[in-house]
């Protein structure tokens, strides 16, 4: 019953000073909204990256020279196509082995040009990485064997070079050498701000001739099943180490890549949320400030309540509830604002945003906690007021 009275009084106090209450809440609203929004963007980005890594194809094993560790220098690859044959023997199925040798190059068609990434690949790439074509066909084994100068364009490159023509059968010039367009990929979209459709695939043999090298950058293997993927990786690394004793090799799975990316994005999300949390803290200071004003303003009321029998705690609870109400209403409004903005950002911008229930619960809980933390001092001050002094206050 005393609590009910405290609620009534707290609500009444907020209503009596609508403008002031609203402005005080604004600090909390902005804080909570930014926490919700930034966590949503962080979560959305993480989800999208995970989708894309998983979208590369399941049970993928990437074999690269060097140690896959943060801070280690890239290693010049000693791998060549004979190593690919060796790996295919280990795997037992050449159709599950893909390679890449990539370099930036300018693609030209007529008067148009586009700087893009040219990848030298095997005909196995679509099967290993789960790629599909919008038009035409992909490279064949014959294309690779004969170093045929044919190219499959990413959707962006196709758009840039042939905005108003069908690219199929047209010529593109890559590093001064002409290639014939035989296919166009289905668009993949963006990932972490990188356009994944900005690429051109040509036979790995043609690429090696183009750049005057026998090397390849890395090998990708689609493992037959998830259970033996690590074991397969170890066998491949052992075989490559035997062939190149001077070089270390690493085999990483999608799960490992996801783990690393997830860690990085998790830290990023945490940092963003912490920065937003600072604004929530500032909002809390505002609440504390306004509560002190409220206590001072209502000193006589406090004195009267004490005279008629309110205990220090009754008064304290009343003001604490006022502070918590202030931040809770602010928190709910901020949540609504944050969710709304996140949905808007997700809908109209390339930045992904995903609302998670835990972030909403956390934001609301934190805002209520801010009310308690920043309401305690003013509430205690009110509770300890000397009734005689309080009654005399102006």
């Amino acid at each position, binding site marked *: *019953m005393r609590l009910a*009275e405290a609620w009534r009084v707290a609500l009444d106090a907020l209503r009596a000073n609508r403008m002031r209450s609203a402005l005080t809440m604004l600090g909390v609203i902005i804080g909570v909204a930014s926490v919700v929004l930034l966590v949503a963007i962080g979560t959305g980005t993480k989800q999208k990256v995970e989708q894309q890594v998983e979208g590369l194809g399941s049970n993928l094993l990437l074999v690269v020279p060097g140690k896959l560790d943060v801070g280690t220098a890239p290693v010049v690859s000693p791998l060549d196509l004979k190593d690919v044959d060796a790996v295919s023997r280990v795997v037992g199925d050449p159709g599950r082995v893909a390679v890449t040798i990539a370099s930036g190059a300018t693609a030209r068609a007529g008067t148009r040009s586009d700087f893009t990434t040219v990848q030298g690949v095997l005909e196995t790439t679509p099967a290993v990485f789960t790629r599909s074509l919008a038009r035409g066909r992909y490279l064949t084994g014959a294309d690779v064997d004969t170093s045929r100068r044919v190219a499959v364009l990413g959707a962006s490159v196709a758009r840039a070079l042939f905005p108003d023509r069908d690219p199929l059968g047209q010529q593109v010039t890559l590093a001064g050498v002409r290639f014939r367009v035989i296919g166009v990929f289905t668009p993949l979209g963006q990932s972490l701000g990188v356009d994944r459709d900005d690429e051109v695939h040509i036979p790995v043999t043609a690429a090696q001739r183009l750049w005057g090298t026998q090397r390849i950058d890395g090998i990708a293997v689609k493992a037959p099943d998830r259970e033996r993927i690590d074991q397969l990786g170890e066998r491949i690394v052992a075989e490559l180490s035997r062939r190149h004793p001077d070089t270390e090799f690493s085999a990483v799975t999608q799960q490992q890549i996801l783990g690393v990316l997830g860690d990085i994005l998790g830290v990023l999300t945490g940092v963003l949320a912490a920065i937003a949390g600072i604004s929530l803290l500032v909002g809390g200071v505002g609440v504390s400030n306004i509560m002190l004003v409220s206590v001072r303003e209502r000193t006589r*009321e406090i004195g009267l*309540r004490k*005279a*008629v*029998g309110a205990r*220090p705690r009754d008064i304290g609870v009343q003001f604490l509830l006022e502070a918590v109400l202030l931040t809770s209403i602010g928190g709910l409004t901020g949540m609504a604002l944050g969710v709304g903005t996140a949905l808007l950002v997700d809908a109209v911008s390339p930045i992904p945003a995903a609302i998670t229930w835990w972030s909403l619960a956390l934001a609301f809980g934190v805002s209520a906690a801010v009310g308690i933390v920043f309401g305690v001092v003013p509430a205690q001050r009110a509770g300890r007021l000397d*009734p005689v002094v309080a009654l005399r206050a102006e």
Partner: protein
Amino acid sequence: MTVAAVEAVDVSRTYELDGVSVPALRGVSLTIAQGEYVAVIGPSGSGKSTLMHLLGGLDRPTGGRLVIGGRDVATLTAPELATLRNETIGFVFQAFHLLPRTSAVDNVALPLVYRGVGARQRRERAAAMLGRVGLGHRLGHRPNQLSGGEQQRVAIARALVTDPAVLLADEPTGNLDSATGEAVLELLEQLNAESGVALVMVTHDPEVAARARRRIAVRDGLIRSDTVHDRPLSGGDGRPETLDAAPSAEPRSASGSGPGHPSGGSGGATGATGRLPRGGGPGAPGGAG
């Protein structure tokens, strides 16, 4: 048989202001019996307000012994003292001290909130009390919709809704015109007579004080006189009462409105000095030396 509502023995109160001790009360002894009608009179700065705060449990003495409703104030924690105020004391202030934006009935019900009475019962009792002070038709009005006299009546109803032993009124007519003030005084006296609540009225106005049966004059933190009058003086004859001279108890023609002083229940609880004899009060430990 009567039990003292409030008993003060050699009570003093000293304020510390910037390291300087300022004595407001310098050893006051008095007993308020149940149902008494007492006026405390003194000029500003005399210590009468301090005395009222002490008698009402709003403040604690720095010396002496103060017993309110049978409980020694010195032994009580702040929450216990608050509960004691709630149960034993009703306050009426010069400035009314009503909560704004709160209806008359909710203002009156406020003390019951801190007693833990349910909302419905609170309203019923508050409404009944407002009826007794003649405001049964103003239950839903807010203070700013009421006249000064009506506001003070609401405050009186609030003071009495808990059925306290003592009603402390601090200059209850100070903010009212004389006619309204007169009506408020009559109401207080009537409630004092009807309900047996002791009425202690602090005032600087000799005419107001003259209405009380017992008059305590305070000056410089001490009780200068504490006299009992068989019949109250008429307030209207314009003859001021001096403070330090013991007021005469000569009978005068009582005015027609003559408020009833407590006729029953407190018969023996009168005395001529600071320490009133209590009619066989059992629990007066160590009070009178």
